[in-house]
């Protein structure tokens, strides 16, 4: 057994987290910042933070992840990190010449109390920041919230780049939340089909799923441009996908620039995508093209074709709140039974929402925010499931409990595809179903007695 010390009996833990279902804010901020065109993310803290975040993102995307660090030493920790940051900004613009630097803090610089806005201002005054170049910052204390919070904070900092607008530009802001590059691409494809002119931010497509061509560029073509971000204030509205990832940025645009917003679920699965598409066509005053209805119908079709394999299968899920909410709804809508749902990110609202979505599930449902995978594993030991969905760390539970595993979420370190094939939208729904089916049916094939081995499913 790989997790041989995990007991079935569940004991209260007040201080010890084991096998977390979250990580810290800065990595979320770094990922979000990579969704700005020509941006170099900067970690204001010790070297290790930056190294760890880059390594994790690199393993997930199998792509170069460039980010700089303030390389704090004991000295800077005592006297504050201003000197380091000023030198960093200078070095970065001189050596790497990005359009923009997106700084996030760390537990270290937050504990010290470095004043980011003041340092950024100072850097500009001292000519450290060249004309036409930009430096933004987001506070991301690692001891608050989770990687999701950090993502949200950086997205908020992007929204904060919006400039006052005399008149509306007819565009709609879409804040996709923490989804994969291909998901962002898919959202753009859908919006284009509906004929709504959008600004998507952040947008990591083209940045984190790049080609191999013999050339390396630190700042690939993709990403939301600084100009687009500055223009967000002129939008007719903002659709924020995911309360945890995207709402703050949307609401900031509302308060600061009177850009009205609506917070929707992430478009995973049929119903959440329906609401997204319907909102988009309503906001844009356009109508939904036949192709999209066709894609939708294909998803419904596969649900009906394969319903017997989904029906009443028990699922354990671990991930981030916005994703879990949409995925749980999707599973329930195809008559699967999510019975253990865990996120490491805090938020009572999460538990409430999940309970609501699963109220008609014919089995008792466990849900916990601020939980960990150790607890999820114990739940599974007490009430087994047919399927496990979560990031790569779930593979240890899956092997010990001999469970089919659909890799989903962040990070995925041991398989390919997530950066290329969207799971949002109707096509994404088809992909999710394909993955669930192949896991369930592989298991059926493996365990079938010879006389019940099936040719046709």
């Amino acid at each position, binding site marked *: 057994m790989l997790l041989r010390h995990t007991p079935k009996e569940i004991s209260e833990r007040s201080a*010890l987290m084991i096998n977390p279902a979250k990580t*810290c804010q800065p990595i979320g901020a770094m990922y979000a910042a990579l969704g700005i065109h020509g941006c170099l993310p900067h970690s204001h803290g010790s*070297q290790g933070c930056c190294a760890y975040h880059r390594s994790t993102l690199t393993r997930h995307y199998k792509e170069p992840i460039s980010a700089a660090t303030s*390389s704090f030493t004991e000295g800077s920790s005592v006297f504050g990190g201003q000197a380091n940051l000023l030198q960093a900004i200078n070095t970065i613009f001189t050596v790497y010449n990005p359009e923009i630097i997106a700084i996030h803090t760390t537990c270290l610089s937050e504990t010290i109390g470095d004043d980011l806005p003041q340092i950024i201002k100072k850097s500009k005054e001292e000519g450290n920041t060249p004309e036409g170049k930009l430096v933004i910052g987001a506070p991301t204390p690692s001891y608050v919230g989770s990687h999701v919070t950090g993502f949200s904070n950086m997205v908020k900092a992007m929204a904060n780049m919006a400039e006052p607008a005399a008149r509306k530009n007819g565009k709609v802001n879409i804040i996709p939340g923490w989804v994969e590059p291909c998901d962002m691409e898919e959202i753009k494809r859908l919006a284009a089909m509906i004929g709504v002119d959008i600004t998507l931010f952040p947008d990591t497509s083209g940045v984190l799923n790049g080609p191999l061509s013999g050339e390396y560029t630190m700042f690939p073509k993709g990403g939301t441009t600084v100009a687009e971000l500055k223009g967000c204030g002129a939008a007719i509205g903002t659709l924020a996908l995911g309360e945890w990832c995207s709402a703050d940025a949307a609401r900031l645009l509302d308060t600061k620039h009177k850009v009205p917003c609506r917070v929707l679920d992430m478009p995973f699965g049929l119903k959440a995508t329906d609401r997204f598409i319907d909102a988009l066509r309503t906001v844009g005053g356009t109508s939904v093209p036949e192709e999209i209805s066709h894609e939708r119908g294909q998803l419904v079709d596969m649900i009906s074709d394969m319903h017997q394999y989904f029906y009443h299968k028990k699922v354990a899920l671990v991930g981030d709140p916005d994703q879990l909410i949409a995925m749980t709804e999707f599973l329930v809508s195809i008559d699967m039974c999510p019975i253990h749902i865990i996120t490491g990110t805090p938020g009572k609202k999460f538990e409430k929402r999940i309970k609501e979505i699963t109220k008609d599930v014919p089995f008792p449902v466990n849900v916990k925010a601020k939980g960990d995978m150790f607890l999820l594993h114990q739940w599974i030991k007490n009430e087994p499931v047919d399927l496990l969905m979560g990031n790569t760390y779930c593979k240890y539970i899956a092997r010990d409990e001999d469970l089919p595993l659909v890799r989903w979420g962040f990070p995925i370190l041991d398989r390919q595809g997530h950066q290329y094939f969207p799971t949002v939208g109707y096509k994404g729904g088809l992909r999710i179903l394909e993955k669930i089916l192949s896991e369930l049916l592989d298991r059926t094939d493996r365990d079938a007695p010879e006389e019940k081995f099936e040719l046709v499913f």
Partner: protein
Amino acid sequence: MATAKKKVVHWDPVDIKAELLKKYPAKVARKRAKQILINEAQENSPPSEIVANVRTIPGIITMRGCTYAGCKGVIMGPTSDIVNLVHGPIGCSFYAWLTRRNQTSASGEKGENFITYCMSTDMQDSDIIFGGEKKLAAAIQEAYDLFHPKAIAVFATCPVGLIGDDIHTVAKTMKEKLGDCNVFAFSCEGYKGVSQSAGHHIANNQVFTHLVGKSETVKTDKFKINLLGEYNIGGDGFEIDRILKKCGISNIATFSGNSTYDQFASANQADLSCVMCHRSINYVADMLETKYGIPWIKINFIGAGATAKSLRKIARYFGDQELIDRVEAVIAEEMPDVEVARLDVYPRTQGKTVMIFVGGSRAHHYQELFNEMGMKTLSAGYEFGHRDDYEGRHVLPLKVDSDSRNIEEIHVEADPNLYRPRKTPEEMQALEENGLKFKEYEGLNPDMENGTIIIDDLNQYEAEKLVQMLKPDLFCAGIKEKYSIQKLGVPQKQLHSYDSGGPYAGFKGAVNFYQEIDRLVNSKVWGLMQAPWQENPELSATYVWE
């Protein structure tokens, strides 16, 4: 193949160095200039000096990590039956969760293995404000109640030092409270020192203080050694242990690949310390000698030749003819397969070039393997090495700077009861005269060719420049560097924690390595980067129909 297309380039090392520095701000350029060395033949003395183990310039995209990574990630991570508990916000513990490929076989007597567990106090803002000691104590208690481990190791992350949590007192108190569990702590906050290296040192000190010599069990084997600085990445340690066992040499304590509490605790009973990774572990080697009288030698199991050489050194130390014969027999038995594999790949690898920028010793060790394959190392350097790793231990002691000053140097002296010189001064001298050097390491530079470029703390920008200028057939570094290099069409191999594969140590490891490098430098993929319409974009007037 990419190599086929590759135009041969002739660069003068001096121009290369200039090119690397050109773009830097003056101050940065001055500093980096001292860390970039054009290697000279060793006869012209004084051998040139390199600046190492100094701060990375803020804003530079460095390969380096932090002290916590060196302490928890590298040294303590590979132990199997000690519960590692990280005191701090969740991130540091999460990122070090199974992300290094140090393998463990749960060899502790009760088969404990905590390697798959990631434990943290998950500090919240309230803990930052009001202090985290209570939470730490509670977490230790919860870990004890759940797992009843022999020992719990506590690691501090950045904020802990700043808010002044006294983790050592908490550890001490809990140790007394629990009674049958050894609890100790590491003040390895990330901001200390200038790289992982400081973390190694801190780990060395605490392991020596809290673990070494704590075992009751007496090791009775004939030829007992400690293997220091071997981390069982990809199973290297398994292969080395296989060979040692075959030779009749007992490795009673590995620091720290697949190690157990009992191994650390018994290290003082060995008769020889063998140092693999000089950088990360030489402190322990010295302390073992001072306190217990165990001499140490530098060995290297990376490379078939190096492995044979190291085995012979150990045998010579013990001076037992039977052992010496056994070692020769093992070498004679293992080498033929290695040679077959080597000669198979050689025609495809010889003449190819490589760059290596890893570790505190690996950039040196792996050149053995590349030499065996006929591949030349054009440029190399360490991520967190010190001057002695480049120039050899004769440059010691190094002057202390403001960063190293803060890393505690623990004072050790001969143990009144346990100190026992393994050899008489005469025996030692005789061995020395026979060419068995104790406490000696010559460093990287002497083993590299004249005119090669040695660079300390290489960064993203310089790496890209180097590759573009010298177009090596292979680049060796870490995960963060992997894909920016490969985007340039040059295969990259991770040599800190191998990206995949292994073991690469010992005899079987050499075979694995030959084949892996053959795969990398001869992969068809590097010939697929250009599309036909990119190779000849002009449209042929008319399409050639059937």
